[in-house]
Every structure is written in structure tokens, then in C-alpha cells.
């Protein structure tokens, strides 16, 4: 019997490291299904444009997508709460745990199927490391230093950074570095050291700020056309679902490996890697303080934020109380390297 072919399109260009991450999902599905399920993995633009995958999965133009929920927050702002929402103290791990154990999955289903009436099943995978504050030509030490900067970011982060005094420019990915060079923007963030390095960020800015609250708990969004999914044998459905969990681990491994070695390469190109100052982090939190009440005017968003806040309050208390001071151990064995 010939295999069932699932067309899966990503929101990433063919050369992006995240295509490799998506490929890890594909490999797992194909291996576990013993060849009964084959995935035709397509880059952004192959069938539809990067930002159109939700519509496309709903209409059955593609059977599945590999993207992030922030890309469709124009249809419903609540989408960004499943990726780039307020940071209450939880990491990507915390939020992914909330999704699978804290009621997030059901809330996501409610948003997609009940509120928006879409024929789509959504899962999250790969708890992304927090996204760096990004690239600056000069040092920025205080929140006041950020004032008037023309900064590139996306999603709710744009609302946030605009709220703390930056003027946010919206640019497509490929134009970021040329725009920096031309002075159209004077600072930007994208996602992670590997993507930033591939962009050529070290050519246009020499200060790279790690740690920020603007997008600190994102994950990949896997969307499946519901009729496609539900027409499959139960074991194949299970394979599609649990491979998201499996790929989460392999994606994390690949991210640790690539992001860290690319951070070294970035430093070798004469870039100074800094930690974002507490003053700036505080300004970001105050920015979220202003945004949250606006978001909570919507009853559904209020419900999601309540659920997340409650989860983070309990889980992160345990996490932080429990985790040993890793920096202490690191300092002990690799003294003098950290600049926290």
C-alpha cells in the first residue's frame, strides 16, 4: 500500500536553520510510521506565503504547518499569548508545560475551533530559548538610552517596545541588515544567534545584548487540518501528535549545539556580548504592566492570562527555589568567563 503523503509547509526560507528543526519532526514521523506516512516538507512560499499558513491549513491547501502563532495575531490578538505573550517569570519550558499540563492546549483549541471557527488542530513544540534584546551599534546601559531608537521587532513585542519609548520599524527579515547599514533602523532583534549570524548581523552592529522579556517563552506552532488528522488511523494520529513531543527534545539539542557555537563565532567576529541591564529589564516589565490590562479587556484573553499567571506562580516558584545556582558551578570550573 502506498504511503499517505502529508504536505507540511513551514514559515521559514529553505536555508533557515529552522527548516532543519522541522526536518527532525519529519524524520521521526516517517521512522515511527514504518513508511505508512510520508511528509512532503516545503519551505515558506512553496504553496502559500509565510504568514498565510493558518488560512492554508484551514482550507486544506496544505495538511500541516510549522510556524509560530505570533504570525497570525492580526486575526486574533490572543494568538500571541501562545508564544510571545507577557513574561510572568516562566521560560519557554514553563509555557510549554502549561500548554500540555496546565490547560493551555484546551484554551488553544477553544481559540482556534470555537472562537474562530477553524477546522484546525494546534500543538506547540520546542521551548525556545529566550530571544535576545538584540543588536546595537553602541552600548545601551539604561532604559533612557533606548529612547528614540528605531528598532525592529514583531508581534506584541512591537507594542511593548513602542510602549517603552522606542520607535518600532516593521521590516521583512531580509531587509534588516541592509536597513541597519543604511540607518533606516539603528537596532534590531530577530530570534537567536544562529539566525542572526546567518543574516550577517555582526557586519552591522558590534554590541549583542542577551536576555530580554520581550519574547522570552515562545515555541513552534504545529497546525494540522482537522479533517485530515481525524481521517487517519488512530496510531498515525498518535504518531503525528507525539512526534511533536519527540522533536521538542531533538530541536532543543540542535538549538543548544548551534546557538552556542554560533554565539562563539559571533564573538570571534569582534562583537561584544552583553547582558541586558536590570534597568532595561525593569522598563520592559513596566511596559508589560501597561499592556496587560489592555489585553485583559478581552474576556478570553483574561482567561488565558489568568491561567498562565496561576501556572507560572506555582511552577516557577518550585523551579527557582529548587534549581541550584548553576552559575556558581560554572564559575567554579570555568572561572572568569561569565559576565552576568
Amino acid at each position, binding site marked *: 500500500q502506498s504511503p499517505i503523503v502529508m504536505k507540511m509547509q513551514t514559515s521559514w526560507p529553505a536555508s533557515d536553520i529552522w527548516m532543519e528543526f522541522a526536518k527532525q519532526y519529519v524524520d521521526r514521523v516517517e521512522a515511527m510510521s514504518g513508511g505508512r506516512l510520508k511528509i512532503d516538507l516545503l519551505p515558506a512560499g512553496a504553496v502559500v506565503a509565510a504568514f498565510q499558513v493558518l488560512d492554508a491549513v484551514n482550507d486544506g491547501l496544505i495538511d500541516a504547518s510549522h510556524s509560530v502563532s505570533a504570525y497570525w495575531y492580526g486575526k486574533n490578538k490572543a494568538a500571541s499569548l501562545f508564544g510571545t505573550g507577557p513574561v510572568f517569570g516562566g521560560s519557554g519550558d514553563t509555557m510549554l508545560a502549561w500548554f500540555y499540563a496546565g490547560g493551555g492546549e484546551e484554551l488553544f483549541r477553544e481559540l482556534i475551533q470555537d472562537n474562530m471557527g477553524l477546522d484546525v488542530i494546534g500543538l506547540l513544540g520546542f521551548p525556545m530559548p529566550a530571544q535576545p534584546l538584540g543588536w546595537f551599534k553602541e552600548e545601551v546601559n539604561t532604559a533612557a538610552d533606548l529612547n528614540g531608537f528605531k528598532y525592529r521587532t514583531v508581534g506584541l513585542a512591537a507594542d511593548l517596545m513602542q510602549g517603552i519609548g522606542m520607535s518600532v520599524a516593521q521590516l521583512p527579515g531580509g531587509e534588516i541588515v541592509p536597513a541597519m547599514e543604511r540607518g533606516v533602523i539603528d537596532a534590531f532583534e530577530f530570534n537567536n544567534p544562529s539566525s542572526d549570524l546567518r543574516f*550577517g548581523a555582526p557586519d552591522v552592529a558590534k554590541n549583542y545584548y542577551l536576555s530580554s522579556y520581550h519574547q522570552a517563552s515562545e515555541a513552534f506552532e504545529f497546525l494540522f487540518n482537522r479533517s485530515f488528522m481525524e481521517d487517519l488511523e488512530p496510531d498515525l494520529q498518535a504518531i503525528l501528535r507525539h512526534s511533536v513531543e519527540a522533536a521538542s527534545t531533538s530541536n532543543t539539542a540542535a538549538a543548544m549545539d548551534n546557538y552556542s557555537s554560533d554565539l562563539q563565532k559571533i564573538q570571534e567576529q569582534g562583537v561584544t556580548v552583553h547582558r541586558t541591564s536590570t534597568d532595561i529589564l525593569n522598563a520592559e516589565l513596566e511596559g508589560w504592566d501597561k499592556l496587560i490590562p489592555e489585553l485583559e479587556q478581552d474576556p478570553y484573553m483574561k482567561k488565558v492570562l489568568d491561567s498562565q499567571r496561576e501556572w507560572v506562580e506555582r511552577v516557577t516558584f518550585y523551579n527557582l527555589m529548587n534549581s541550584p545556582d548553576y552559575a556558581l558551578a560554572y564559575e567554579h570550573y570555568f572561572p572568569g568567563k561569565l559576565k552576568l
Partner: protein
Amino acid sequence: MTDPQVALSMLALFIGLVFLGFPIAFTLMALGIFFGYFAYFDAGRMWRGFDRLDETASWWESTSLWIEGFYNNRIFDLFINQTYTVMSNEVLTAVPLFLFMGYIVERANIVDRLFSTLNIAAKNVPGSMGVAALVTCALFATATGIVGAVVTLMGLLALPAMLKARYEPSFASGIICAGGTLGILIPPSIMLIVYAAASGVSIVRLYAAALLPGLLLVGLYLTYVIGRAILQPSVAPRPTEEEVPSVKLGTLLWMLFTSFFPLAVLILSVLGSILFGLATPTEAAAIGALGGMVLAVAYRAMSFQRLRESVYLTVRTTAMVCWLFVGSYTFSSVFSYLGGEHLISEFVSGLDLTPLQFLLLAQLIIFLLGWPLEWSEIIIIFVPIFLPLLPMFDVDPLFFGILVALNLQTSFLTPPMAMSAYYLKGIAPPEVKLTQIFKGIMPFLAMVFLSMAIVYIFPQIVYHLPGVFYGN
């Protein structure tokens, strides 16, 4: 047939159907929809509504169910999705603005001032009128991004002057055809915007990259004109005092100043602001259009009539280019859904080509397509077939784009669809034959190939300016 083979027959059918002369945007749309109908065919989904139907159903109910059933194929959703993708394309927003600017500037009597001034300034150079015509074209090309009007304006202005000065008709018409098409190569250029939209290459880098190759081509054209005038003075005799009067140096300088000034303003505001980082191409195009309007007013060449003409022409040409994108986006997403792209890459990788052989083959195909087709169809429809192959041969899409842009200069000049030659033929005195025009064009075609070879051998010509402006 396997899906990828179906995709290939879709491409073959398109190439055949193009020659029936139906508007290409709608041919592409139709083929995308037919083949997509096949790709997404799902009988259950189509006739879902018939379960609701019984004997008592009226004629109207069953007809509307048939229509609903027919349209209940996902291809239509894909088509709408792709249409919207073109509508929201940020790169293409520059297209109507550059077109508008071009139409405004064309109507502002800039070309004639410039040509008559340069004619006097170049008086002592061999082939002086040809040189003046080429330089006028090149300067005008640096201010605007469209083609067509320049050939005609120069044809009305420079051709009669050259013929009167006993220039050989084929030599003179070759100069005008070749010079008149430079606008679409030298930035700002609509063609490069369209290539950027099709390939994802940064438009500002493309502009920076195209500048030196464009000037190189101008240089080769000038070399040919001057060289031929020296070796064979009979094709380009020195104009007499009546044909081109001498003027005092001061007068000449003043004339140069007044005719260069408007262009300098436009070039600085458009190209300068893009390259020196003051604006995005869309913004620069808007500033250019605004500047064009101001200039037109300053030169008393602006009237409501002219403004209205420019607006209407902008709508029509923008619609022409962008509907072509609507058709080709639909076509190509069905093509890649069926796996056609895959099959082509497998086929090409099976050929075991060296990168140079691949480049030669690709450019040869594009050159041949340029005979029957125009640049817009080639870039929007055919170039995307090559783009996924570039990484296989380690070819930079920026570099490839510049070679394509140079190559497509020939598409205006080669029969049967030689727009440049036809425009000129339309306005030239009847004794200038189309065959003479083509004969005059030949050496310029050779210069285009020479420029491509030089660019290939010295890729720095492409990379130097992007490096200076934007780093590597």
C-alpha cells in the same frame, strides 16, 4: 503519470498556450486552476451537498448545488490566498510609484533639453551625435525606471537630427534602440524590483549591484560608437555648423547646468536616497514622484491633463504587471505542490553540469525566451524555475539577477518581439526599414554579451558597490 510529470506537462502546455496570444495573466491563472483542480480533486468534498438533495428539489436548488459542488475544490482557496499574497507584497508597492514617477517625468520635456545641450558639448568627439544620444539615454535611465518612452522621444528628436547629419540609418537607429532600453537596467528600475519580488533578494542590494554593470554597458556602447566613427567616418560624419551650432563656453555651461539640474535633483532624491540609506525603494519612489511633479511644474510642463494621463497609465501598467504576478503565483504554487520543482532539480542535477555550464545554459534559455516574450513574463514566470537550482551550483541569486538583467536588455532588441525596434519603426521616417534597424542593433547585442562575459570574469563589478554601501 506521476504528480511531478503532471507538473511538467503543465509547464509544457503553458509554453504552447502562450503563443495563442491570450492575456498571459489569465492563461497562467487558468492552468494553475485546472491543474490545481486535479491536484486537490476530492469527490467526496465536492458533492457533499447532494446528500441534502431529494426529488422535490427545484431546478434552482440543484443548479446551485452543482455550482457549489464545482467550486468546492481547494484550488480556489489557494488561488484567493495567492491573490492576497500579491496584494500585500511590500516590495511591489514600489511599482506603481516608480511607474507614476516615470510617466510624470516623461511628460516634463527633460530629454529634449538634455540632448540638444549634449549635442553641442560633444561636438568634437567622433560620432558626437551618437555619443550625445547615448549619454542622454543613460542619464535619463538613472532617473527613471521604465522603458519605451525614451526610445520614442529619442527617435523623434535624435534620429531625424542624425539622419540630417548623414548618419547611416542603421547605425543611428541601433544607437537609439540600445540606449533607449537602458532605463530598465540602470537603477532605479522596475525590472529589478520585480526580480527582487520574485527572488527574495534585497532590492537595495540589487540596485547597488546593477549600477556598475549598467555603466559598463554604457561604456561598451560608447566605445563601439566612437570606435566605429573613427574607423568608418562615413557612418557618422561630423555635423556642420548649421546642424549643431557652436556656442560660447559660458552659454554652454549655463545650458548644461539648466538641463542637468532637474535630472540631478531626481537622481539624488531617488537613487541617492536609496543607496545612501535615507529611504526604502518605496519611499524613494514616492519622493521621486513628488519631485517629478515639482519639476514638471517648474518647467511649466504640468497640466491637469498630463497628471490625469500619468495616473491612468500608472493604473494600467501596474495592473498589467501585478495581475501577471497573481497568475504566476497561482501557477507556481500548484507546480510546486505537484512536485514539479523537485523533478526539475533532479533532472538538472543529473546533467552533471559545472557551475559555468549551468550559468551558460540558464542564460541561453533566458536569451531565447527573450525573442518571443517580454521581460516581465520572463522574470515573473521563468526565472523562478531557475532560482531553486542556484544553491546546487553555488550561484548567488544577486549575481544571477544582474546577469539576467543584462541579458534581458536583448529581449527588447531581438525579433519577433523587439519592442524597442517597433517603437522606433513607428516614428522613424518611412525610408528607415525594420531590417536596417535590426542590422544596426546587432553590434549592440554583441556588446551586451561582452558585458555579461566581463561581469562573469570580474564579479567585483557586481559586488563592489553593495560591499561599499551595505557590507558583505
